[in-house]
């Protein structure tokens, strides 16, 4: 069974622009162009993350009530 999302096709430029808009980012076109150039390597990275960990696998930082209360 596939353990990641690397089989998905890269997002198209219009999709990336829409995602930026949904994130509330209204960037000048020059900065959007820079972003469009670098995003594919980040998208590929995120898609390589395995997705089949055990249901109970804990994230590396869990909430620690004592620490918050102490501070």
């Amino acid at each position: 069974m596939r353990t990641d999302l690397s089989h998905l096709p890269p997002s198209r430029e219009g999709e990336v622009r829409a995602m930026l808009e949904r994130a509330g980012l209204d960037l000048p076109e020059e900065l959007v162009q820079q972003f469009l150039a670098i995003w594919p390597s980040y998208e590929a990275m995120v898609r390589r993350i395995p997705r089949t960990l055990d249901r109970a696998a804990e994230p590396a930082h869990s909430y620690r009530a004592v620490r918050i209360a102490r501070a």
Partner: protein
Amino acid sequence: MDPAFLTIAELNRLYDRRDVSPVAVTRALLDRIAAHDGKLDSFIRVTPETALVEAEAAERELLAGRRRGPLHGVPYALKDIIETAGIPTTGHSKLCQDHVPQEDADLVRRLKEGGAVLLGKLATWEFALGGPSFDLPWPPARNPWNRDYLPGGSSSGAGAAVAAGFVPGAVGTDTGGSIRGPAAVCGICGLKPTYGRVSRRGVFPNTFTMDHCGPLARSAEDIALFLQVIAGFDPADPGSEDVPVPDYRAALNQGIAGMRLGLVAHWYEEGAHPDVAPAMAAAVAVLRDLGAVVEPVVLSSLRDYTDCKTTISTAELYAIHEADLKRRPQDFGRVLRNRVLPGALIRAEDYIQALRWRTVLAREQALALKRVDALVTAGSLGVADRAVPDEPDPLVRVPNITMPFSVGGLPALNIPCGFSRQEGLPLSLQIAAAPMAEAAVLRIAHAFQQATDWHRRHPDLG
């Protein structure tokens, strides 16, 4: 006596014998900075008035026979993301170029209580991530071995200043290798302590779950002395560990005969600079000659560790910088902006999956460290990069050999182990151990440095 390349340990002995004074050392190093840092740009801000006041106070106390600790009267400098009350702390960024903190970072408080002498604030990649950048209010630092090259990052000024003989020690920060990288390419030592060993309070965040503060110096012994002063529990840092601080210097001379070392060779056997593997083979031979038992260890790939670390970092960084990115994106340097903006498109489930993966990868390291006392591998896959603006960003494309121990939160120390043949630039050995086992890492490094002289070689600034 020229104090430029005296170690902290040597300064302590000279102060004890009253052969040299903190004021004389401070003045000499300030003069050296004034004479040479125009070529290296390692300092953003030199603080001579503060330095001389602190040096005079230290001198008075030492002459009165009151020694506060191993950094009493010892000059040092701070990466400019570490807050200093009344002294601007800029993050090397236009966004904070007028920021003057009201309070010291916890580690600065400890250094002041220990009588250390602050010479100034050091260049960094923008907010400890965006670099090398040529579009910031201050230029990027240069490598003292060859100023056509960079000193690594993000603790770029710290690496350059210690290697150049401007200060015997400095404090940097390390999220994915930002202490160890500059140490590697500048031919000095740099320790990323265990996550939670040194307080992060008062330090600009990069990645909350992986930020570490630690020393850069010219010997493992000096790293031990520096760590002794800045380590300790801080209840105001949610990541701080309430674990007693041992006497790091006490274990240095125990030798490494019989210690079991796990060599992670597959991380550097492919894709590294051609001189890395031979330098590592020579370093391992030294460790074996000293009595260590070296055996191979196989862990997940650098690609896995780099993906896991960078996904977590990018999501956390975006949360930190989101407001500024929306209000004033042009005030970010290009490199920082383009490394942070992808976090806007990383989904919550991607971030959580990366955090869960981190647990798996960290457990893999913990299991390996049940079989061996420490892990050794290369400190860097290459030599210093050339100082060329607008190079393609390697952060995500090229796997990084310091990131595995960031993912594990383990203590990891880089020490020099040779020079490349073609460029004549430093190469580095990396040693990591179980959480809070800094003493073991330092013991191995000190033994290595008693048998080699790579750490005693210094650049000629002309």
